[in-house]
């Protein structure tokens, strides 16, 4: 491994000495360029795999992903709302393997030895790396809400990782009688997809409006303010009347106990709410492999160097996406995709012995309140004094006074965004 690195260094020097300054990839293309292992095939990991290969096809990239097909959290709410089929949010890794030459390992990574530069799979297989990139997403903090563990989630789903949990929630909504009550509990910051719980109740309200118009939605919140709040509340009024009731933290919205048998939740000040269908979005932390790799802080999240998204704690391990401490960037698929590109560029530059350029990121989060009613928040991020910041005067949310046409166009752009980012990440067209 040391030999390979020193060869790379000298190659980098040769490339620098030649006049084709802007084409170091030709220099790199003449030899093996290093081994990258990526854990997690979501927005962060799959994007990084693709963009590393695009920049330098001679870097050996191995993607470890537990499932053969990735279902996205973005647009899973549209499935719940009856706007999409489940398979339309699933994406294969075919283009990564067939077009870009990424090695796909279907398995569960459970251990990382940062000194030995190895990843261990649940199968016992060990894979060596020069650079490791983790895109582990989030894990639920089981037990943070009394009574809410993995077994309880089979009755009261979280549906905060798209897959069987999402399908379970959908089937419960379909089985519910008209006039029933749906309860959603929204967690404290930080958590995956800040507008997600609010888009979810919007989409479920859309489903109720069309199928079970006498039903109610109770949104119990562990926060006093939420993403795009004013826009959401105006949209709820406009489309769903008083179907959705939001209970803030200060109005006793924090759920502290769950009783799956009684289908009840209890709030901090002791109120009991009964639901016909209950969805708990619990407090979260970085996915388990981040802990195993020793890159998490005491809060359970991963501090990173913002220029490269390399771990602050362990060399040669890069971490992107929801698992990281990247605020003010939100924990979103868009952020993970943008971070995956920056980490990919940093890894490619590091193998070539070059400096990585100046990174910048953007984020746009679209939310659908109704099928033809979209809202958005957007921002551009860059590094200043070692921290990620936004530029004053840029970014922001959709105007409060926008007309129907504006909302309709943002709903169309939301779908355009999904088509583009999933193509950019996995290269696959939805089924």
């Amino acid at each position: 491994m040391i030999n390979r690195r020193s060869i790379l260094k000298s190659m980098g020097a040769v490339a620098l000495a030649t006049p084709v300054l802007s084409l170091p990839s030709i220099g790199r293309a003449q030899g093996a360029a290093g081994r990258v292992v990526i854990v997690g095939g979501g927005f962060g990991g799959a994007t990084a795999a693709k963009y590393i290969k695009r920049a330098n096809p001679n870097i050996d990239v191995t993607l470890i992903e537990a499932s053969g097909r990735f279902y996205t959290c973005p647009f899973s709410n549209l499935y719940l709302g009856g706007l999409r089929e489940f398979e339309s949010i699933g994406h294969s890794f075919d283009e990564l393997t067939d077009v870009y030459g990424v090695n796909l390992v279907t398995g569960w990574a459970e251990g990382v030895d940062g000194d030995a530069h190895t990843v261990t799979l649940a199968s016992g297989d060990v894979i060596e790396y020069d650079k490791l990139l983790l895109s582990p997403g989030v894990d639920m903090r089981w037990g943070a809400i009394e009574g809410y563990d993995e077994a309880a989630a089979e009755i009261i789903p979280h549906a905060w990782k798209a897959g069987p949990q999402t399908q379970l929630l959908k089937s419960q909504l379909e089985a519910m009688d008209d006039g029933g009550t749906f309860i959603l509990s929204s967690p404290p910051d930080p958590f995956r997809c800040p507008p997600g719980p609010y888009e979810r109740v919007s989409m479920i309200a859309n489903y109720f409006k069309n199928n079970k118009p006498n039903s109610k939605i109770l949104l119990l919140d562990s926060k006093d303010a939420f993403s795009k709040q004013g826009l959401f509340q105006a949209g709820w009024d406009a489309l769903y009347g008083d179907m959705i009731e939001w209970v803030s933290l200060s109005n006793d919205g924090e759920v502290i106990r769950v009783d799956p048998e009684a289908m009840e939740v209890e709030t901090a000040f002791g109120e009991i709410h009964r639901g016909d269908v209950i969805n708990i979005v619990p407090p979260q932390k970085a996915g388990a492999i981040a802990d195993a790799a020793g890159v998490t802080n005491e809060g359970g999240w991963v501090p990173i160097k913002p220029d490269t998204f390399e771990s602050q704690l362990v060399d040669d391990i890069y971490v992107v996406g929801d698992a990281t401490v990247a605020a003010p960037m939100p924990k979103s698929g868009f952020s993970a995709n943008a971070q995956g590109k920056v980490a990919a560029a940093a890894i490619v530059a590091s193998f070539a012995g070059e400096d990585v350029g100046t990174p910048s990121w953007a984020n746009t989060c679209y939310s659908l309140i109704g099928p033809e009613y979209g809202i958005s928040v957007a921002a551009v991020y860059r590094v200043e004094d070692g921290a990620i910041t936004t530029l004053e005067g840029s970014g922001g949310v959709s105007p409060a006074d926008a007309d129907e046409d504006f909302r309709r166009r943002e709903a169309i752009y939301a779908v355009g965004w999904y088509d583009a980012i999933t193509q950019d990440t996995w290269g696959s067209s939805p089924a």
Partner: protein
Amino acid sequence: MKANIMTNSTAGLSRRSALVLGGAAAVFSLSPLGAVANTGTWQRVDEVLAVLDGADPIAQGMVLDLPLVSENGASVQVNLSVDRPMADGEFVESIHLFAPGNPYPEIATYHFTPLSGRPAVETRIRLNETQTVIALAKLSSGAVLVGEQEVRVTTSGCLTDADTYDTANEFQTRVRAPEVLATGDIGEVLTIINHPQESGLRTDASGDMVPMRLIERFEATLNGEPVFSADLNRSVATNPYIKFHIAPQAGGTLELIWTEDTGESAQASAEISVS
């Protein structure tokens, strides 16, 4: 960075057993644990120095538990506790909380009594910007403990500020207190009052300053005996929330009073029985 390693180990102890332990530890509490804080943000904060009134604080035992990164500076949860062996008869009289990066650094002062059971409080505060939050604990012996923690304040890319306050529920209070406690047990009391806690520092939609209007005082008594009280300032978050503790010797009525700076007040009560 947080020195909260011992918090859990002492959490299950009653005040009495903690005091017994404290007695044993008192022998060395004056020297080896008595590290004087020679460097710290507190040294540059006039409001902190005013409370110290010349005392040299000990940089140990005043525990602040705050998030490392807050995505909403309008409401940041903070847990304050004291983790230090006490001499016989020594107890924590008060905890003073400061946000030096806010226009008015004093956040609140919390006063404890023997009925408090534990010198610990949980609340929600406003943080204007990234800064080091400071707490002082004044002990009955005259010693002062100081603790600090830096909090990075960002606004999450998806968060929009709610700059309106729904006055429909103003002065509504909520209380959750233990209904039954065993003698010697320490119970938690959760309280909240719906109130804008207007800082006098923000403008409304038409650009006019919204006048200051604060809940400035909170008092809890059990059968008329003081349990816990707090003086609240502008940096307490909207809808002041306070969790404190109670260690009743006998059952009775817990009465709570919130007082606004206009003199208006709200009251609530809860029955606690001791078995």
